């Protein structure tokens, strides 16, 4: 690292950022760590100069910075500096990041068939153009409505779009991810009906199950598993387990394995207990072509929203959508935006039903959520606006076409077969492999292909591979995958 000789390179008016002004120099180590001549290497994004700080301390009437923190007993203070790497300049940081990214193999370098909850859908450039506006990304939560109308209105539009897709009447401004949204839905069901027993299907995303367990064990929710049959929920097992103590049933469709659950029939079984709530976890892209869960008896619809205009980023940020019927709005978790009027009678937006939230209700709040995933929902809103219903249906259709093409092809490779040949699946399916799935993954990676997700890593069958295909894949890429698989000649 280059150290700059004293202040020669500083712009006029700037002086080195030596903090201590006391003649006793309370921070002697500053000299030792040569702050004055390392100015060019440190970017603390602080505007004030040493001279300004001196003026400010004078106005405060303090001799030194140390005087300001006299409330901190001296023996509790850190002696010396934190043991961190020496600071990097922006240019050095850029080099560092370049180095690190070389350690990654991204979906642009390899052909990816990975899904399991995070999907590589096409994102129009206009999405990032809006999302990267500081007007949106450096703004705070829209508590001061008069200077937050931009954020409030897009959330209102987002809520509307989610209601349209899910067939529900009210959506919140987002949860952390699909998993925590499902967990919060179970907690909401407990608030509504007081029944602390919930049924989770074996076909539900295994990581959702883990998060649900974390979120519901504190209030003592008993979680029951409904078995799977032919790649979907076993309706007989559900019927057997539905009793008067069941407060909610979560159904994911398409489920973890990509299969569409027979929601209408399952919903009837769930509602055989009139108090029980049907919670549906849906893929938002699929809802362009599949019936809205709201039209099939769902009481709460949640899901992972990442596929709507958000990059994968190794699985975060994600965002959970959460929608329900109006008569349950007061039991919902999370922020909700409502339309209203301003003092002059003009249309305006504001956070509404805030009496549910932690900053008002504290220990009795419907959830502890504060920060959510707002900016991700802006991406979703812009994405859905650009796509429209036709564009989204086209994304869903092409994903379905290519997925089924892939499934048909892979089933023809010796040793490979579809786990459930008769299931209706959307953009993901499970294939049985003649060798451990991990071997297929390793072999195809050598050919620049991410073959899919090893179900063994989720505690399921390690000879099964979960393969996702979005509209970003081409027939040629799929053919290449199949050809490579044939050449590997496992049988």
């Amino acid at each position, binding site marked *: 690292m280059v150290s700059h000789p004293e202040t020669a390179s500083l712009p006029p008016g700037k002086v080195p*950022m030596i903090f201590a002004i006391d003649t006793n120099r309370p921070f002697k180590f500053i000299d030792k760590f040569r702050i004055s001549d390392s100015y060019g290497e440190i970017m603390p994004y602080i505007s004030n100069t040493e001279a300004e700080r001196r003026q400010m301390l004078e106005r405060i009437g303090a001799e030194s910075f140390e005087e300001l923190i006299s409330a901190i007993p001296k023996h509790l203070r850190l002696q010396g500096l934190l043991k961190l790497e020496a600071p990097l300049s922006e240019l050095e940081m850029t080099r560092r990041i370049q180095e690190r990214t070389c350690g990654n193999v991204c979906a642009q370098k390899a052909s990816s068939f990975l899904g399991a909850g995070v999907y590589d859908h096409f994102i129009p450039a206009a999405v990032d153009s809006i999302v990267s506006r500081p007007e949106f990304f450096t703004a705070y939560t829209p508590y001061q409505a008069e200077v937050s109308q931009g954020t409030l209105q897009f959330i209102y539009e987002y809520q509307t779009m989610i209601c349209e897709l899910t067939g529900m009447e009210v959506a919140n401004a987002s949860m952390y991810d699909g998993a925590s949204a499902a967990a919060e839905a179970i907690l909401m069901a407990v608030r509504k009906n007081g029944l602390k027993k919930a049924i989770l299907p074996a076909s539900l995303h295994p990581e959702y199950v883990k998060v649900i367990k*974390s979120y519901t064990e504190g209030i003592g929710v008993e979680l029951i598993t409904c078995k799977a049959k032919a790649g979907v929920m076993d309706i007989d097992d559900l019927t057997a387990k539905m009793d008067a103590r069941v407060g909610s049933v979560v159904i994911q469709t398409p489920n973890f394995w990509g299969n569409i659950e027979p929601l209408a029939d399952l919903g009837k079984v769930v509602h055989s207990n009139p108090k029980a709530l049907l919670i549906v976890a849906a893929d938002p892209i699929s809802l362009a072509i599949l019936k809205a869960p709201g039209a099939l008896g769902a009481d709460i619809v949640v899901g992972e929203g990442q596929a709507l205009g958000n990059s994968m980023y190794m699985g975060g940020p994600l965002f959970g959508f959460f929608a329900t019927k109006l008569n349950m709005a007061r039991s919902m978790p999370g922020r909700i935006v409502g339309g209203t*009027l301003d003092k002059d009678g003009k249309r305006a937006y504001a956070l509404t*039903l805030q009496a549910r939230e*932690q900053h008002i209700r504290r220990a009795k709040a419907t959830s502890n959520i504060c920060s959510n995933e707002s900016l991700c929902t802006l991406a979703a809103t812009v994405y859905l606006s650009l796509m429209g219903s036709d564009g989204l249906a086209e994304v869903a259709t092409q994903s379905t076409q290519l997925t089924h093409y892939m499934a048909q092809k892979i089933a023809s490779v010796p040793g490979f077969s579809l786990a459930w040949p008769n299931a209706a699946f959307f953009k993901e399916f499970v294939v049985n492999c003649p060798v451990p799935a991990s071997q297929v993954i390793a072999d195809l990676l050598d050919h620049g292909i991410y073959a899919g997700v090893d179900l063994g890593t989720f505690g399921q069958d390690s000879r099964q591979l979960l393969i996702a295909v979005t509209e970003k894949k081409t027939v040629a890429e799929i053919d290449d995958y199949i050809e490579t698989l044939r050449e590997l000649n496992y049988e």
Partner: protein
Amino acid sequence: MSKTIFEHSVAGRKGVTLPRRELNTEVKDFFPSEYLRETAPRLPHVSELDVMRHYIKLSHRNHFIEKGLYPLGSCTMKYNPKSHEALVRHSCFNNIHPCQPESTLQGSLEILYELQQDLAEISGMHKVTLQPVAGAQGEFTGIKVIAAYHRAKGNHHKTKIIIPDSAHGTNPATCSLVGYDVVELKSDARGRCDMEHLKSIVDDSIAGFMLTNPNTLGLFEDQIEEIADIIHSVDGLIYMDGANLNALLGIVQPGKIGFDVMHFNLHKTFATPHGGGGPGSGPVGVVEKLAPYLPVPTIGHGEDGYFFDYGHAETSIGKVHTFHGNFAVLLRAYIYIKMLGAEGLKRVSENAVVNANYLMVLLKDHYHIQHTEHCMHEFVADSLWQKKEFGVTTLDIAKRLLDKGFHAPTVYFPLIVPEAMMIEPTETESKESLDAFAAAMIEIAQECRDNPELLHEAPLTTPVRRVDDVRAVKFLDVAFSPGE
């Protein structure tokens, strides 16, 4: 009146192009007809320019950091460096999938591993999880860890957590979610924990204590050692709400002064953008005896490189996020820490404290301030004088500030100060920016005398006038319908 995007819709307009279909199959070939939607969802039909104009127009109706000072107490609305934004958008970050083999994620894992180490050093904690995606989820994780510790020790009689009356609302809400009862601790005349009250409520049923330090009055809880002794004497654990960590960087390591577990708000202290409400990130650090309970996986490092470490899965509280937390946010915080280093981070806190004290001194003759000793990174003023003399409330003052181009402080919080205005300028504001804010506040104090009616009318110049949030609850309108 700003139209919704739905009102810009014209049948047939398109905002995107997609590839021509390569296959001639149809959706109905693959799904039973009863699964298929009969009517399309009502999404808008708009061109790309329609979309851009609409959302740019909305963006103009927001306050944001680059526009002006954002003095929200406990929210730490500091400047969000632009280099971070450019670097995180690298295609080898945004195009990576969480289920890729570890060998293809080494760059990202190395970053996360280093960030775990750096946050452990900054906090003085033994081990850090990066999985929680928000401060409140960090709290949830930390309190779950406390619960897991007590379960492992057979401390089944521990059912309560103590929380000061000055605490953020997320603290009690979190305890309820984990299944603990909350015992509220009073503040004393110095704005710190009332030690006599604390002693009177501590018994064997106490599982832990949640403390924000500096607290929400902007004061360092200087009795922390005694508090720790009392809580530890009944095998309770002390949680630090790290919302106010911006005051302590390189000055105090919470893990070294009695705290057992804490969360970080990367979107506050470490300059990642707030995004209009999120995404944030709330990593959690713990002392050594609590490390076995952290969520899995953490990031490990061995001979073969970096890996997802499930080593303590048996004792872990499990998972709080589908995958590995908010990677894109973690990445920004990593860049921030690496670019500042130990010296830069210390200067952040030093300047945050100087800025807050300077502003407090400028305002103290014009607004009542209950605790006038030197503050840390924030302080709480109130409108006691204005309310009593002129009938002007904190809400009025907050709205008038909007007219003058500033965001309002955090208002009516902490709850223990009536008509509170909690002010945190952050280190990134310059002296002239603080002077301008103080001048506006002083001008408002004068307006309260001269023309209180003006204050009730405020704001006058914002995109909309004072918004009727009572109406928003009474006539619930949460989704657009074409008839509107």
